[in-house]
């Protein structure tokens, strides 16, 4: 697809703040989330989970459980006889049902379907698992050392040099120029090491599904997911069935943030249903969500940056070591690609490492891999600026990437909005507001790629002139509203006349997961094209009615009209009029569009934060927070602001208090919201979002994704603010009070 999709236009609907279509259902409790669906004869399914961080499963005896009243099926890995086609799916199967080893505290080793929760729980207790407990490792640096307990053998890629344990699965390098020569030109060089803890997305809705598998090998699945096509394809591969025989319907979703881009319960529920012959509903408890879904990677990062006295970065290097849990994940590589992406660097070497440990496999969490990298890079950028006595925004402006810059990860940038966000930040009153005692201000930049991908949309004209729109992407950020708005804009009809639904996997072609900030961009583009397709049909119908050429008809304000005086003199035909007669003018009218959408348009943001540190307790208060981000075009500004605020809030949690805490025995110590500390409302100031609109050339309306970039700058921004307020550089996340107080006292 061409990159010159964008056309400047006056918007009527896009850019307004219309009522959201899912609001009433959600506030009245009518919305159906993953656990809200039931079926006649339904059983409930529960998982038996490993209490050990690392253990060989010598045997599992399910006979007693199987004989218990109310128990209809007990499954273990032995029931999954099909070997999935792809490596990735084999890892997913190993993750949802342990093979010969339990690889983390919470790893599923068996599951039960029973007529009641109490019967199922009693059956879980009756399953006898003989474990041989093995040494474990949960820290990334420890896991890389030769001699560390190893999770897998023979999975190390050729890119990994000698001298590391088998846990190091891959190494990838990015950059250009000659860093040694670059550092030789530097007046100031700062080198620091950083650590960040694993965090969880913290979506409110736990994973849940209802699975029905018949003896005819046809299945239906209702589940809470960010991508039901992905669920279908993955489950079909795991169960060894043709994907067309499994229909998946996405529930309403109570948050995902990347954590619902894979499967956990679904293949287990399908197998329990297959074995029992009954529908099976499964719902995770919060404890299970924390222990056995997909948190982020924890990291260990080294950054070195050299600069001249007048503020030109001459060279930079980064080593990004990411532990991604018990299987391969491409997180370190993403960190290595994103960390330096905001800068125009002559000499750069950025290396990413993927390391397995005895933790649940990491999943995406908004811009996977990028926030931790930005934390490390932007912290050193801040220190370098301070060292040479330059304003941190000026220093960033001096080195900012622009159109034509060769990016840290290779490609050359088209028009980008980084400089605009920095300039807006500098001009904003926040940047020059006075600070009090024990207060500090931080700034940070962040980058995310954004994505397009496989997308299908169908737009149906109803006989009364209203419009039904089907998309295939679960709505986690307001996409139903945005799609209705873009369809209404293009067709020239009121927003209220368009209703968008998320169709099941049998109703549209393949759609990528709702991830990569892709939906408003890619599904939006497909919606506009589907509307244009419908308009072409409506123009042809009008032309036939008038007896003129279709080329002689134009579409203006929701109606077909003759294009100029030569086309003839006919009163315009509105959507409503064309719909009313469509049965007689050629039959039903629908537009559709299918594509692998390209031209997503990278995204940048700059954040400013003020903090106050209590020097006696190390407690950090967030006083003020402002987000500047390029949205390309904000289709529904409320939702865009919500994304920017949400990213900042999740970043505040990650920076200050959230962390996966593992005990000596490798078990998770804080699998719940009492001791896994997400910010509460009273912890937060109003986050001020400032939307910039630098049109994306790859989208007809200039839209860029906004969902992920917002979580990239906060860790760095807050660390820079806290470091200035406390008078000591904070290099380890979270900056919880004991850590901050210890750093202050050590200073």
């Amino acid at each position, binding site marked *: 697809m061409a990159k010159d999709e964008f056309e400047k236009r006056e918007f009527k609907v896009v850019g307004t703040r219309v009522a959201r279509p899912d609001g009433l259902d959600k506030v009245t409790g009518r919305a159906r989330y993953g656990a809200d669906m039931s079926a006649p004869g339904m059983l409930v399914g529960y998982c038996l989970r490993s209490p050990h961080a690392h253990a060989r499963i010598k045997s599992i005896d399910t006979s007693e459980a199987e004989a218990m009243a109310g128990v209809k099926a007990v499954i273990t890995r032995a029931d999954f006889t099909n070997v999935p086609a792809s490596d990735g799916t084999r890892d997913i199967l190993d993750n949802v049902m342990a093979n010969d080893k339990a690889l983390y505290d919470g790893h599923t080793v068996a599951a039960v379907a029973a007529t009641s929760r109490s019967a199922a729980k009693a059956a879980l207790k009756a399953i006898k698992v003989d474990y041989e407990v093995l040494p474990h490792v949960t820290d990334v640096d420890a896991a890389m050392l030769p001699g560390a307990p190893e999770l897998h053998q023979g999975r190390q890629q050729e890119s990994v040099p000698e001298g590391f344990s088998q846990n190091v699965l891959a190494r990838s390098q990015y950059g250009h120029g000659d860093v040694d020569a670059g550092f030789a030109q530097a007046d100031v060089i700062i080198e620091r090491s950083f650590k960040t803890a694993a965090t969880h997305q913290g979506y409110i809705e736990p994973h849940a599904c209802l699975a029905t598998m018949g003896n005819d090998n046809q299945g239906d699945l209702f589940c809470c997911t960010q991508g039901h096509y992905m669920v279908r394809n993955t489950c079909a591969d795991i169960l060894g069935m043709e994907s067309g025989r499994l229909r998946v319907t996405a529930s309403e979703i109570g948050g995902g943030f990347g954590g619902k881009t894979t499967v956990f319960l679904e293949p287990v529920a399908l197998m329990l249903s297959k074995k029992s012959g009954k529908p099976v509903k499964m719902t995770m408890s919060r404890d299970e969500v924390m222990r056995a879904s997909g948190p982020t990677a924890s990291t260990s990062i080294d950054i070195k940056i050299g600069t001249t006295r007048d503020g030109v970065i001459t060279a930079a290097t980064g080593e990004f070591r990411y532990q991604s849990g018990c299987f391969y994940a491409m997180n370190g590589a993403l960190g290595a690609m994103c960390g330096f992406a905001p800068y125009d660097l002559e000499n750069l070497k950025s290396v990413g490492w993927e390391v397995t440990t005895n933790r649940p496999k990491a999943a995406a969490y908004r811009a996977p891999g990028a926030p931790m990298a930005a934390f490390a890079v932007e912290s050193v950028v801040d220190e370098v600026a301070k060292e040479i006595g330059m304003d941190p925004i000026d220093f960033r402006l001096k080195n900012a990437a622009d159109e034509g810059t060769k990016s840290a990860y290779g490609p050359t940038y088209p028009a980008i909005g980084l400089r605009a966000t920095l300039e807006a930040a500098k001009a904003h009153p926040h940047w020059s507001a006075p600070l009090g005692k024990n207060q500090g201000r931080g700034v940070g930049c962040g980058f995310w790629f954004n994505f397009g991908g496989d997308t299908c949309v169908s737009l149906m004209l109803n006989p009364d002139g209203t419009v039904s729109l089907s998309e295939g992407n679960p709505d986690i950020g307001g996409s139903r509203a945005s799609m209705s708005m873009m369809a209404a804009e293009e067709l020239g009809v009121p927003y209220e006349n368009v209703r968008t639904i998320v169709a099941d996997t049998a109703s549209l072609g393949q759609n990528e997961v709702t991830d990569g900030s892709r939906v408003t961009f890619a599904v939006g583009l497909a919606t506009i094209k589907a509307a244009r397709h419908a308009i072409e049909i409506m123009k042809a119908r009008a032309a036939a009615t008038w007896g003129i050429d279709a080329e002689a008809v134009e579409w203006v304000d929701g109606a077909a009209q003759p294009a100029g005086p030569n086309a003839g003199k006919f009163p315009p035909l509105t959507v409503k009029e064309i719909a009313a007669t469509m049965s007689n003018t050629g039959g039903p009218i629908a537009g559709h569009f299918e594509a692998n959408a390209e031209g997503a348009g990278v995204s940048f943001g700059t954040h400013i934060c003020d903090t106050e540190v209590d020097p006696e307790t190390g*407690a950090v208060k967030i006083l003020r927070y402002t987000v500047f981000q390029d949205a390309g075009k904000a289709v529904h500004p409320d939702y865009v602001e919500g994304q920017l605020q949400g990213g900042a809030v999740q970043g505040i949690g990650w920076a200050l208090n959230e962390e996966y805490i593992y005990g000596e025995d490798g078990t998770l110590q*804080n699998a719940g919201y009492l001791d896994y500390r997400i910010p509460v409302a009273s*912890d937060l100031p109003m986050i001020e979002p400032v939307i910039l609109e630098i049109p994306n050339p790859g989208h007809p309306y200039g839209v860029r994704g906004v969902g992920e970039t917002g979580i990239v700058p906060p860790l760095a921004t807050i660390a820079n603010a806290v470091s200035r307020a406390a008078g000591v550089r904070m290099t380890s996340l979270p900056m919880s009070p*004991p850590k901050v*107080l*210890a750093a202050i006292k050590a200073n």
Partner: protein
Amino acid sequence: MKFETPHSVDDAVAILRADPEARVLAGGTDLLVRLRAGHISPSAVVDIKRIPGMRDISQEDGGWRIGAGVSCAEMGEHAGLKAAYPGVVEGAELIGSTQVQGRCTMAGNLCNAGPAGDSVPAMVAAQATARVAGPNGTRDVAVFDIPTAPGQTSLAEGEFITSIFLPAPPAHSSDAYLRFIPRTEMDIAVVGCAVNLTLDAAGTVTSASMSLGAVGPKVKQVDASALVGTICDDAAVEALAAAATAAATPIDDKRGTIAFRKDVSGVLAKRAARIAYIRAKGASS
């Protein structure tokens, strides 16, 4: 599982005595959470809130008797109680959220016997007593002596608390409670500290008590004599802080390190003492 709603203290005692697996239900904000999580499976739940007097706050001998069914939110709306014991009320009002406040009780907080219970240190600093009803009649027990270890109390089989009594506050006295949590609410105290002071007419401290929560297996009474004879000046509060830090015997865990909790015990002692002093002086003017 049975649900019992006795209408008299004697009926409640009879039920509890007959069934050692029965549990008392006050607000239920601990009990129901543990029940649902599968940590406990009592044979009966005995709701004491229908017993006459359990929901009352009343004045007695110049002090205040608070029924075991009084919610912490009700305490927060009681002007007389707040004026007499602002520290006790602020401790009670730190528990949970608005929703939890509407249910939870001080007696429940005490009998749950968590080391970090927020209402307990200020009760202890106020020398509060609990009225305990049981098979052998009624006895009054110092609040300090109710919890014995995490999750354990000194209550015997068949016994339960019917009320908490806060003695008549002397003239020119007041109290304060502060806790440290990493967030601003909905969290469990990493350290809690209550200070209760009595001054003479000139503003000199004549008696002082302090207690700490979350830094030992149960609430601690800490010697606060460093404040006596002072006007709560910097040297006096620093001495008090040192006493708090020395007295704290916390553990290293996911909620904080030993060093951090000892430091913060001192910081809260200073801050609570200053607040209590200002309140006591205000009360005396």
